Each structure stands twice: as structure tokens, then as C-alpha cells.
């Protein structure tokens, strides 16, 4: 089955992004396909490589990056939500005159059209977060 995943909650405060990760891992292990994971609202905060949790805690951002590398996942951060929250890639930093970028490996910034597209292409779209 082809899945689309929406992560709309930020890391650590709520369990939603953990659950999204565990769900994604489980469906991939069962041989299903994930067309795209769309990070939306506060969920865009999953995609900053500056995340530095305590060493004895799970590293939510790195965990996504590793899962993406292993399964060639398309991790898309909503551009409008990202701009509001300071999640920036090289192109966005240049465009808006910022002195740095912070997008994590495996993530890319794109628009809401990517969410609509995965809704069209996937058999199931599942939202994690409110």
C-alpha cells in the first residue's frame, strides 16, 4: 500500500512525531511504500539539524534523517510554516537574506501542493498531530 504521512506536531512536546516515526518505520518494514512525509504547522520543527536533545534521549531529527537515507524517503517541510518558524534551507536563506540555514539532511522545503499531490497519489493519508 502507498502511504502519505502528515506530521503536524513539533518534536518532544507531544508524542505525535514519535508515533509518526514508529508508524512509518513499521509500514516500511512490512513492505509498504511511503510516498512522502509532509511536515506541517509546528511539525516543521522536526526538520532542524540544530536540534540537540540530552544524550540519553532519542534524537528525533536525526532519526528522521536516518530513516529517509535508508528508505530514500521524501521528507517535505511546508514552506509557509517553515518561514514562520525559522526553518531555512540554503535557497531560502539566500532569498530572505538570512545569515544561516538549519535544514536537516534528508529534508527539503516545498509548498502545500506537495500535500495535495500525495493526497491524490497515496492509498492512505494519515495525520499525526492535531
Amino acid at each position: 500500500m502507498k502511504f502519505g504521512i502528515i506530521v503536524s506536531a513539533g518534536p518532544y512536546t507531544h508524542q505525535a512525531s514519535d508515533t509518526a516515526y514508529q508508524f512509518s518505520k513499521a509500514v516500511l518494514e512490512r513492505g509498504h511504500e511511503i510516498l512522502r512525509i509532509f511536515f506541517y504547522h509546528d511539525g516543521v520543527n522536526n526538520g532542524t539539524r540544530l536540534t540537540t536533545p540530552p544524550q540519553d534521549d532519542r534524537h528525533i531529527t536525526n532519526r528522521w534523517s536516518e530513516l529517509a537515507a535508508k528508505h530514500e524517503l521524501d521528507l517535505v517541510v511546508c514552506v509557509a510554516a517553515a518561514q514562520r518558524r525559522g526553518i531555512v534551507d540554503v535557497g531560502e536563506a539566500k532569498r530572505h537574506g538570512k545569515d544561516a540555514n538549519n535544514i536537516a539532511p534528508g529534508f527539503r522545503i516545498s509548498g502545500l501542493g506537495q500535500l495535495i499531490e500525495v493526497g491524490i497519489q497515496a492509498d492512505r493519508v494519515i495525520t499525526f498531530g492535531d
Partner: protein
Amino acid sequence: MCINRRAPYGTIYALEGLEVVLMGAAFEQDISVVYLDDGVYQLKKGQDTTDSSIKNFSPTYRALASYGVEKLYVETESMEDRGLSEHDLIVPVKMISGAELTELMEQQDVILNY
């Protein structure tokens, strides 16, 4: 289907729900938009956000029809609970009961919640 359950201001969800509907329309999707619970306030006439410095985006709802978005549903119970009638809303809608909404949701391919 896009389901809107929150008041127009106080959170960003109402605005985002509107954005995703417009994007879905750009992709020529068959879109139903539902307003229930406090979400019915999103369509209320006479919104004035001057004192809160937040943009009043309610005029955009009137543009939905021109984007081909014409299936707007409002849950009757949510309206009654809040003392609202169709005359209080800025756009024409179809009033449906919670039970009818359940049936409508069964028919959808994708449901997004805001």
C-alpha cells in the same frame, strides 16, 4: 474533504484550512469543506480583527466559489448550539446534520482536519 472545527482566530488552523482548500482547487480536486463546532464562526458575518492586529481573512471565503469550491457544509447542531442561522454567514452553505456528515465522510478519499 477539509474539516474546520476551530474558531477563526486564536490559532492558525482556520487560515491554514482555507489555504489547503485553495491549493486543492488549484489541483482541480473535488473538494468538500465542512465547518463544525467553533469552526462555524469562521463563516460568520461582520468579523473585525482591528484590535488584535491579526489579518481578517474572512473575505477570502467569498472567493471560494470562483475557485470552483462550491460544496460548503455547516453542521446544523453546531449552528444551533451557538444561536446561529444561515443568515449570519458570509457565504451560501448547505446545512447538514451530524449523521449526514458521517455519511458524507464515508464517501471521501482524503480527509484533512484543521
